[in-house]
């Protein structure tokens, strides 16, 4: 008998996400020891907008990673055997348990205490009245909603805000203590340095971003257990919960699709530029052809094929979560396969330039093999382009997912994503009175994620691009 009240379950995307995390950590360790790799990252850390964006991104990444540890909760044992629920849960689900379980009947506005639609209610005295019924969970603790609601929301919101700011303040203090220890100054001195922007790493920007996060998250966390902060959707599910669950989908698409694209772009681009001639012609022909087929068409075709395959081989995919997950991977793969051409072209151009450089000629003079020259002399010198492309493509792919899911060829409809949220909000926008919160929540979260990713990508590009003349490099 299993002692644990749950069983871990590793989805394909989870495995890939954690492999990616391991790779990032490995790269960080590797880069630390190498000054030429460390230097651009330390330039990123000196960019104010980059640091602020990194704080916001970190919050998203945390949500995404929590959502990537899945398990099945244990059911009461049957026949002496341990039994587990068919439904997969993630650590994020566990933290958001109250949001997940508190379902209403249908739409309710943000922070509402009553449903958004009138219903016929049977009164105790037998009369039937059409009115807005009280929500089952949202504001259920209020005795007299009409009178108490505003005060209660304000009080709880304010309390949440206060706690959040207190936490923020202690983080800021801890940071100044750390800075003080490094620089050898006193804590007050470091505190002043941080706020006057005199530290090498712009901690002020990071703390400001953290403060913005706290101002938003504090009241939300305080109110979420008792209210639906972003309202509920058609089937009464909490919109905040949906928005938080969407983060993982977006991030998985943004990162895994790039990973699929990378080997194609890197290998083919470098080969085209290095060998020139026939090889170059073939690869150019390939990507010219591929990039002249409309991407959406290709994606739609392969997603539909995947769907048919899953339906015909239902036994291979025991649960709906696994099915949705496989479809997500398929989407990543096809997005990757259709999007390598741009990076490939860039790498081909850079390699054409590099292959004429003298250190590569010197390697030829030693009779070093082509493969080794490409691996040792070309690849490391095009990595800055790869790095820039990686972070720049991320936000594009997150947006692409939203568009594809909206069109209906994106992720599985049962999987919560920004695209599916927008898709279901489409009809609600036409309702009178309008249901706006589903779309608004998706919009706010996606904007924050993509904006932070873009700002971070900008900082990375500035730090890695050797063509940007940096102050001090002029002699």
């Amino acid at each position, binding site marked *: 008998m299993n002692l644990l009240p749950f069983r871990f379950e590793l989805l394909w995307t989870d495995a890939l996400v954690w492999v990616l995390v391991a790779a990032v950590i490995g790269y960080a360790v590797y880069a630390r020891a190498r000054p*030429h790799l460390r230097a651009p990252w330390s330039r990123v850390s000196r960019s104010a907008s980059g640091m602020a964006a990194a704080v916001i991104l970190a919050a998203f990444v945390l949500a995404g990673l929590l959502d990537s540890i899945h398990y099945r909760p244990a059911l009461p044992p049957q026949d002496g055997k341990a039994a587990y629920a068919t439904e997969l849960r993630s650590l994020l689900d566990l933290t958001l348990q109250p949001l997940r379980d508190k379902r209403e009947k249908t739409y309710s506005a943000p922070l509402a205490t009553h449903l958004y639609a009138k219903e016929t209610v049977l009164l105790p005295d037998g009369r039937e009245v059409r009115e807005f019924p009280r929500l089952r969970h949202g504001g259920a603790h209020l005795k007299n909603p009409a009178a108490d609601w505003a005060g209660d929301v304000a009080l709880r919101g304010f309390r949440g805000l206060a706690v959040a700011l207190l936490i923020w303040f202690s983080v800021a203090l801890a940071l100044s203590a750390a800075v003080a220890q490094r620089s050898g100054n006193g804590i007050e001195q470091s505190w002043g340095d941080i706020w006057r922007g005199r530290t090498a790493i712009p901690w002020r920007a990071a703390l400001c971003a953290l403060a913005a996060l706290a101002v938003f998250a504090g009241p939300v966390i305080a109110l979420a257990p008792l209210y639906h902060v972003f309202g509920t959707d058609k089937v009464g599910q909490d919109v905040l919960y949906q928005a938080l669950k969407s983060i993982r989908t977006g991030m998985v698409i943004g990162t895994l699709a790039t990973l699929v694209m990378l080997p194609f772009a890197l290998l083919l681009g470098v080969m085209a530029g290095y060998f020139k001639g026939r090889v170059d012609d073939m690869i150019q022909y390939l990507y010219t052809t591929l990039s002249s087929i409309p991407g959406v068409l290709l994606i739609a075709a392969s997603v539909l094929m995947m769907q048919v395959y899953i339906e015909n081989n239902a036994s291979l995919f025991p649960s709906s979560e696994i099915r949705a997950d496989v479809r997500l991977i398929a989407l990543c793969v096809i997005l990757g396969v259709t999007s390598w051409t741009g990076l490939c072209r860039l790498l081909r151009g850079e390699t054409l330039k590099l292959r004429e450089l003298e*250190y590569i000629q010197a390697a030829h003079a030693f009779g070093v093999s082509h493969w080794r020259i490409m691996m040792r002399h070309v690849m490391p010198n095009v990595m800055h382009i790869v790095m820039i492309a990686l972070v720049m493509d991320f936000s594009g792919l997150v947006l692409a997912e939203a568009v594809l899911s909206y069109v209906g060829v994106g992720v599985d409809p049962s999987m919560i994503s920004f695209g599916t949220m927008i898709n279901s909000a489409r009809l609600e926008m036409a309702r009178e009175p309008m249901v706006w919160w589903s779309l608004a929540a998706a919009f706010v979260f996606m904007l924050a994620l993509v904006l932070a990713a873009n700002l971070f990508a900008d900082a990375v590009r500035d730090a890695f691009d050797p063509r940007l003349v940096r*102050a001090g490099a*002029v*002699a």
Partner: protein
Amino acid sequence: MSKKILLSVRDLRTQIRGDGPPVRAVDGVSFDIAAGETFALVGESGCGKSMTALSIMRLLPDAAAISGGTVELDGENLMALPETQMRDVRGRRVAMIFQEPGLSLNPVMTIGAQIAESVRRHTALTGAAVDARVIELLEAVRMPDASRRVGEYPFQLSGGMKQRVMIAMALACDPALLIADEPTTALDVTVQAQVLELLRDLQRSRGMAMLLITHDLGVVAQMAQQVAVMYAGEIIETGPVQTFFDGPAHPYSRKLFDSLPERAGRNRLLAAIPGAVPPLSRRFEGCRFAERCDRVLPHCAGTVPAWHAVGEKHDARCHLYADADGTSVVKSATASGSGAQIAVRRAEDECSAALLQVKNLQVHFPIRKGLLQRVSGHVYAVDGVTLDIFPGRTLGLVGESGCGKTTVGKGLLRLVAPTGGQVLLGGGDFLALGRDALRRRRRDVQIIFQDPYASLNPRVRIGDALEEGLLALDVGSGAADRQQRIDALLTEVGLSPEVKGRYPHEFSGGQRQRIAIARALSVEPRLIVCDEPTSALDVSVQAQILNLLKRLQREKGLAYLFISHNMSVIDYMADEVAVMYLGRIVEQGSVDDVLRAPQHPYTRSLLAAVPVADPQAVRPVLRLAGDLPSPVNPPAGCHFHPRCGVAVAACATNYPVEQRFSATHLVCCHLCKKTD
């Protein structure tokens, strides 16, 4: 001779801000330029010459800022002018030309339109008058066929012509001062001679003052009236050109002269300056040159030297002249002469069989055109070159850029595929070897490149870069042996074995070139192709590298194919010389044959064009007209006849056969007849 002072710079200071402490690129520079005079600012790279010019024009990059001092033009302080008025000063009263003419012209505008733009901006001319003025300017800079060239785009012009266009633009409104920042560094020696002559004539006829920035003492000797030597952000010596060349006073200036290969003579070591220019971000307490000076006094490192007169109007910033009678120190120093004698090698002792024989080497690059990439023509980069290289000796290959000398070097290493001919190395034909056999034979021939910054992979540590050849060619037994070899190599080229773990960006140009030499040596080659190994380096560093190459040759019996456009370097290094013109060798022989008694008109004009670091040198005037023709359509007959001053009818029809002028001297010219 008290001319009116046109430009007066006082205590000019410019700082570049970056991540670290500010770099004081210009640190208290003062000088005066009289109207109509040429003032030369000499110094090695990184000493702040260009920054001084840009500060005067107030055209500094964003990271740099002027932090003090005044610049007065005709008594008006340029530092106090608002930017709008400064724009009128630039171009109208002070004009500037830059080193790289190709980068200073807009590639999508005709040159006429670009000159007209600056004419319109600074003069009241309109309509047809502007066009007339543009043609007048182009004629003034001796642009051949000016009225047709007006409508051409920069890509249709050669480097020399582009520089002429730049000069024409600068002259558009008769500036009182022309700042020329290394105006001929990117040009070939024959074109350089044309441009320098043009600048000199223009300056004389227009009474224009000129601030000439250069690293080349030969150019200074030909052009300037006043000289100032810059070192580490400040001027250390200034004086009239004749006095300065007669007796440079500051130890640094003297070392600069001594490190010129033509001054030393082939059998002496060049006087190299040890170390490198100190970083300008640091604070200086004494003389900036103290660490590298061979005549350093105890108080040099602690006390900043003041200006001391060493002659009439000739001042130096050096403690040596503090109390003694300056001139005597100058005399004694010049008499001391240059570096030590090297053991003279006798050519007869080792004249053995050739190590490498190049027979009729051809490298033709196909030009492909159209949809199907049909070959529509060829670039005849190397068109039948025959050379012999003997063990332990140096063959110098000279010629203007674009004549195919680098392609010869790469072709015989098979870095570019030759289309014909033979390269006989140790009996077999190197060009006929298969893949594996070629890989084994690669040990025998290695190459050193021109650009020390491009010749090392920035992502690979020095130790790994040196190990690459050992691994690829299976030299050495095991990792420990390889590491020992690498240590020995680094010591051999004058670096500490501890640098193995560092990356190339931590090294200066000269150090990188040493590492590149160590890399070539790692597989114990018998021949090293040196492709302009010092042309990107300063003279003092060049001297270090040339000394190193000579020592290695003596110790290891290496043969060098030394490719260079610099006649004095070739003169210093080579035992035999071959002169290339448009893919073919026009003259070859021993160094004395070719450089002392040149027979081919091309060799003669090439030698005449070299600026000599002596203002009084009497030189034959043999100016080459025009530029190198395209190797796609070489002229019929002798390739050189369109530019040749003494061509006869036969030159236009037949390519001259090679004639043996003396036992060691071969010439390809219709006019050369054997004398005996």
